[in-house]
């Protein structure tokens, strides 16, 4: 039996586990941590992948299990939830500030649902350089060092920086 207080504590332990690729973000701030609940005496943590092929999922699962074990929860299960699919809108305001402070441009609003319309023009985003704040930035590639990021260059300070994509 996991008491209500113990469950709240387990939730705060899980909420402090960080993303392996972007350690300035907790899994909670990234929106990957969906739920911490009790099921028949065990702590059940539910996470959702950012991208189908996200190689960090195994590490996240291991980290959650290991941190909860260290905190005294010896019966922990980490479940994956695929639906609803992760959206960059789930990154919290605190997470967005943490990204910007570490030189990563946070995402804008995710596209609305419905049919995906073909767009052959360059992607337009209201992106500012997270280092110098200039808005004269250039998209280098829609694909970056991890599946969730695009690459930009700042026209003012000439730094290259990552932008978390809207999905």
């Amino acid at each position, binding site marked *: 039996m996991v008491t209500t207080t113990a469950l709240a504590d387990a939730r705060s332990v899980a909420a402090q586990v960080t993303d392996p690729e972007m350690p300035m973000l907790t899994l909670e701030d990234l929106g990957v941590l969906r739920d911490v609940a009790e099921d028949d005496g065990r702590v*059940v943590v539910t996470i959702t992948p950012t991208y189908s*092929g996200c190689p960090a999922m195994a590490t996240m699962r291991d980290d959650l299990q290991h941190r909860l074990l260290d905190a005294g929860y010896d019966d922990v299960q980490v479940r994956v939830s695929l639906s609803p699919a992760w959206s960059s809108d789930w990154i919290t305001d605190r997470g967005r500030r943490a990204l910007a402070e570490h030189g990563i441009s946070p995402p804008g609003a995710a596209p609305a649902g419905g049919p995906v319309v073909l767009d*052959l023009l360059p992607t337009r985003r209201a992106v500012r350089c997270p280092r110098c704040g200039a808005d004269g930035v250039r998209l280098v590639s829609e694909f970056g060092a991890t599946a969730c990021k695009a690459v930009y260059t700042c026209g003012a300070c000439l730094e290259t920086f990552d932008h978390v994509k809207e999905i």
Partner: protein
Amino acid sequence: MTDDHDSVYDGLLGEDDSHWAFGTSFEDPLAGVDTTIPDGADPATLATYCLMLGDDALVYSHRLSQWASNAPDLEDDIALANTALDLLGQARLLLARAAAADPSAVPAMPEGSPVPAEDSLAFFRDEPAFRNLRFVEPENGDFAVTIARLLVFSTYRLALLERLASSSDPVLSAIAAKGVKEVAYHRTYAGRWFVTLAQGTPESRRRLEAALPLVWRHHDELFATHPVEADAAAQGVGVDPAGLAGEVGAVLDQVLATAGVERPEVPSAGPVAGGRGRDGRHTEHLSRLLAEMQSVARAHPRGQW
């Protein structure tokens, strides 16, 4: 707050469970997902249908990953590798879904083998058991061929996944809804490069015009409904690809018109020994691809680290 990631070597040196050498410790990408078969669906049909879509993603992912370190520039190297990674993720989920729906679809492994079902399906099936379209098999060719093929494939797959998001199987529906967001980026990438190559230099246009007929030979196969696809659609779990032709054609025509390139008129590749990719009849390209992809796993069926 303690840092879980002090050193990348910690994970290798720790006293963790031993890992199947070709997978991760995340044995089952569907861990904790309810994989009950929906009412009205036949498990074997659902499993074969998942193999079809999963094999498309797996084979094409492996093919695209061959661009890693070979692309024209670093940005495209990373873009193609990311595209391959998204498709590999979709393949893992779809193969795991196939295994959960019908365990008899998974090749038998030696007693005590650490190989999870998805890896067993990926590395231990022979060529005739693969149900992917022949469209995804050919060698990459040059960058123009790669872009032309990626444009057609991602347009087809996006239309397919958008409909599959309404599947009566909640697992397939979730995999599809997730995949739509990813494949939308692939189509955008290929569409923009297609227009850029068409309107770039005489050489880039020449290459693109030469690429298109090569890719188009297998175009009709995308929309040729296999009996398993028809059954899956009738049972509410799958999508009949014949119904995608109009929408896919409209999107491709839009890209071709923007690029100022004519839709090629080439004869379709015929069946092989009376069958097509969905029947397990493949081009010679697949056997070489599988030999590369599967040889290490097969040499070490108990490989652990």
